[in-house]
């Protein structure tokens, strides 16, 4: 293969790769991409066949002129649709193809490379998906290969070679390593490069694709089919991390509903809490903490563990309804992190412990339903009646999601007496009305139940974990939770299989990508740099007086801590970046200390030898001179006599003869000291 052929091939491969993400980003039609790729395949085939006839410059210019009318038409279409990106990309694809087919001079190859870079930049600039990282890595690898080979071929060409020899220069391993090294170096650069604009994409945590479908489970009004449709979604709703708590039910309340009208529940009244930090919800003692990252669900509700006694959402204004459910004043458009202090068991007392009239509202209750309540609930204390009703539903009704949309005029009546199957909202709604018909105040609570435990120790709660249950007022006990949904229909907490694990890992990666790459901004940088400076100050204090060996040990320890902290599920994103940078800084600091450390002198080596001898048991006094030390060491540790004597000899020459050791002697000193230390350790 001639050098020219190899250069053409490399350029063609890079050109084929460059625009691949564009159709996925919906800025280029698939037809255009396929046509372009087909053209390049043809080009590669011609290269493979050793073709020597390529487009002349004149032909390329004629093609460019012929393209002009189409370009004008394309621009007109683009203007109508409000974007000029597509025409520009079309022009880029056309130019690169024609240029590749008309490569003649060396500079033409670089012109083609510019065109390819432009396509690559367009592909990157319009990409938001995680997979673009892989694309970037592959492109960088191929680009580095191109640069390396071009440099080599240029050199070989300058020395009169024409082909063949270049193939024997192995570069693959180096290129792979340098691509990885480039990616590693790029991480801190990416973190520290100054951001003066808000990020191009602001709704982070949404998987890049804009997960904006409203979670109607937390809207002001909930139809009976709301949760049923949500339950079929595998999208992540939130991530939860517990600290300091033991077993927990993983039940998160997002809203309470009291009035049932025409097959829909209406929200309980709420009170505005001033934006003053943590909000107390219940007087119970907190035993632990739950940190929650809520995806933008298009709703106001703030799902909280039913054990929550206090919530902290920063200075965001909140409202708390009669059922103790918390709502935001504004829908979050990005992942929202908040903390809930939790008690050992579900809290039973909400803000308004005494039930209001709404909790006994019998709207929607039919005579048949009242009869059923009497028959099933029977007499006795409200707790027993509620338990009987709960058991009745669990044992006599079947859970299904198929009932969605088939409720008819009175969906609850239909559920109770005709279908006898439904999903959690039917069960909970029916039980609320049956409890009320028995004079027991009750309300509907919606939220999430269960989640998937990830390998990193936190939980992923998906929209499929959406659930509805009943809160009933029991004299003396307050508001108690009843869940009439059969256990088979309840979303469960538990470990996932391999596929689930892969899904969790993917979710985590997407989350991290969105949060810490696409939407990384100046605030994140300030946080990172602040903690980095603090960390650096601490490290510097520790390293300041340390010599090289200690510095390395300290740095290694710091890196260990950093790695451990970064891997910890408790570490937030900024903290992870900070720890990563701190680890790198520690290594850099150690390297600096090693570089700048004082060179070994004979006096320092002699002092060290004295220390080693004393540690090995040799009785030395401040009056023991070097020659006496040498004699004593030889008597007591004959194996270490020779290296010790050499150290002493150089010390005497330096200290009394005024002659500094030179480089070979310094090397000798180091070795003699190491040998003496080794022998002393072995002997003693």
């Amino acid at each position, binding site marked *: 293969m001639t050098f020219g052929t190899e250069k053409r091939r490399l350029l063609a491969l890079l050109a084929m790769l460059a625009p691949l993400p564009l159709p996925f980003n919906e800025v280029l039609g698939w037809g255009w991409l396929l046509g372009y790729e087909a053209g390049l395949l043809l080009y590669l085939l011609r290269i493979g066949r050793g073709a020597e006839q390529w487009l002349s410059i004149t032909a390329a210019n004629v093609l460019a002129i012929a393209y002009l009318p189409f370009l004008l038409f394309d621009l007109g279409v683009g203007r109508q649709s409000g974007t000029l990106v597509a025409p520009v990309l079309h022009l880029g694809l056309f130019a690169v193809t024609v240029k590749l087919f008309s490569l003649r001079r060396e500079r033409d190859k670089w012109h083609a490379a510019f065109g390819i870079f432009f396509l690559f930049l367009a592909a990157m600039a319009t990409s938001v998906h995680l997979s673009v990282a892989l694309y970037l890595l592959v492109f960088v690898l191929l680009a580095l290969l191109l640069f390396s080979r071009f440099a080599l071929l240029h050199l070989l060409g300058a020395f009169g070679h024409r082909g063949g020899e270049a193939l024997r220069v192995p570069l693959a391993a180096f290129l792979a390593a340098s691509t990885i090294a480039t990616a590693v170096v*790029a991480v801190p650069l990416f973190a520290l490069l100054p951001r003066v604009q808000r*990020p191009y994409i602001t709704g982070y945590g949404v998987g890049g694709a804009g997960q904006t479908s409203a979670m109607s489970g937390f809207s002001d009004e909930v139809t009976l089919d709301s949760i049923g449709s949500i339950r079929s979604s595998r999208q992540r709703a939130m991530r939860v991390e517990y600290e300091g708590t033991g077993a927990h039910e993983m039940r998160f309340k997002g809203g309470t509903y009291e009035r049932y009208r025409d097959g829909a529940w209406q929200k309980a009244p709420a009170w505005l809490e001033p934006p003053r930090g943590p909000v107390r919800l219940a007087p119970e003692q907190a035993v632990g903490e739950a940190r929650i990252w809520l995806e933008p669900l298009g709703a106001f509700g703030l799902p909280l563990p039913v054990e929550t006694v206090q919530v902290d959402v920063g200075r965001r204004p909140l409202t708390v309804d009669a059922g103790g459910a918390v709502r935001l004043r504004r829908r979050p458009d990005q992942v929202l992190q908040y903390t809930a202090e939790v008690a050992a068991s579900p809290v039973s007392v909400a803000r308004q412990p005494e039930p209001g009239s709404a909790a006994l509202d019998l709207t929607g209750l039919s005579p048949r339903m009242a009869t059923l309540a009497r028959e099933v609930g029977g007499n006795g204390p409200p707790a027993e009646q509620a338990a009987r009703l709960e058991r009745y539903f669990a044992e006599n009704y079947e859970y299904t999601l198929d009932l969605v949309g088939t409720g008819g005029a009175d969906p609850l009546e239909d559920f109770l007496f005709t279908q006898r199957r439904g999903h959690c909202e039917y069960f909970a709604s029916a039980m609320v009305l049956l409890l009320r018909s028995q004079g027991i105040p009750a309300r509907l609570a919606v939220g999430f139940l269960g989640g998937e435990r990830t390998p990193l120790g936190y939980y992923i709660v998906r929209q499929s974990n959406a659930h509805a249950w009943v809160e009933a007022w029991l004299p003396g006990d307050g508001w108690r939770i009843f869940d009439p949904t059969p256990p088979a229909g309840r979303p469960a907490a538990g470990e996932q299989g391999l596929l689930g694990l892969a899904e969790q890992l993917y979710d985590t990666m997407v989350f991290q990508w969105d949060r810490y790459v696409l939407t990384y901004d100046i605030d994140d940088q300030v946080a990172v740099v602040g903690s980095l400076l603090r960390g650096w100050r601490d490290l510097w204090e520790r390293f300041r007086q340390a010599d090289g060996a200690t510095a390395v040990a300290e740095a290694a320890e710091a890196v260990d801590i950093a790695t451990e902290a970064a891997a910890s599920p408790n570490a937030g994103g900024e903290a992870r970046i900070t720890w990563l940078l701190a680890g790198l800084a520690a290594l850099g600091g150690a390297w600096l200390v090693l570089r700048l450390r004082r060179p070994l002198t004979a006096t320092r080596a002699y002092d060290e030898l004295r220390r080693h001898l004393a540690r090995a048991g040799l009785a030395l006094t401040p009056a023991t001179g070097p020659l006496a030390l040498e004699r004593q060491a030889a008597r007591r540790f004959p194996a270490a006599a020779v290296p010790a004597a050499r150290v002493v000899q150089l010390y005497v020459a330096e200290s009394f003869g005024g002659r500094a050791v030179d480089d070979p002697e310094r090397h000798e000193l180091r070795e003699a000291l190491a040998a003496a230390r080794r022998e002393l350790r072995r002997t003693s």
Partner: protein
Amino acid sequence: MRTLRRRVVPEGIRITKVGLWYVLLTVFTGIAATNTGNNALYMVFSMMLASLVVSGIASRHNVRALELEVEPPREVYAKSPFHLRFRLRSRGVMLPRWFLLLSLEKRGQPMLVPYLPRRGSTRGELEVLVPRRGRHQLEWGHVSSLFPFGFFRKGARHRLEAEVLVFPEIFPSGTRRAEPTAPTGRGPARRSAWGHDLHTLREFRQGDDPRGIHWKQSARTGELVYIEREVETGHRLSILFDNGVGPLVGETAAERFESLVSEAATAAVEHLGRGFHVELVTRDRRLGFATGQRQKLAILEALALLEPVAPAAEPLQPSDSRAALLRLALEHEVAA
């Protein structure tokens, strides 16, 4: 062969045209990223900067941890290119070396070593030209590289401690200006030597120079026949080089002096090549009549190191007054 490894001195970094364009594109990407706030562009920008960093580190590493050994040839003449044999060895245990350009002058004609494996070595020859006679120090071996991506040309010089004795320039045949006088002594002596005239033909004996075999006669007789030639006492040349000229003032005088040294060297080499016995007489040195390779090297070495000395009144005298004379002096160049 002398080992010429010592410490490495960086020789800076020079950006190539490709590197310049790459840096400009990096800046362009950085501006685009800053203006748009697009973190995907920041990623590209970071990667481009990182590749420059990696390129710098790799190229720095690439020209280090090398050992250079050179073996100068026995005869090196001023202004005459010669091939310096070298051995380049990598002491690197982690990475091989790529695209090495080796030269003895920073901007001299380099030798390309495309690949050097870990702890591997390569041999080659560098073409070197030394302009002046005398002792010449090969102080540094210059290694540069476009590795890894051709953005920068990074250089480092490796200390050499080789010394080459450079003989005077030898003028091309027929361009020598000073011709020696004809010999004034007797004709050839009747004894065997390496003259031009035939002395006798005899049977080849062990120890005889095979070059003296008379092949035609040997073929005719079926025995190896040896040619004995007469010694040519008249084939003696005495080169009298008067270097007692005091300090040389001005470039012209220095150039003239060098030219005379080259004249002497050329005459000596030519005559020794023709079997002459040649003598060199200077103010501070006298090399008696002798012939052969050893005499040639001795005369060339003496001429290579010849320096002007204090002037003296008495003229230089040859050892053999019947030998042809070549007198060379700065003021006048005479064939006496």
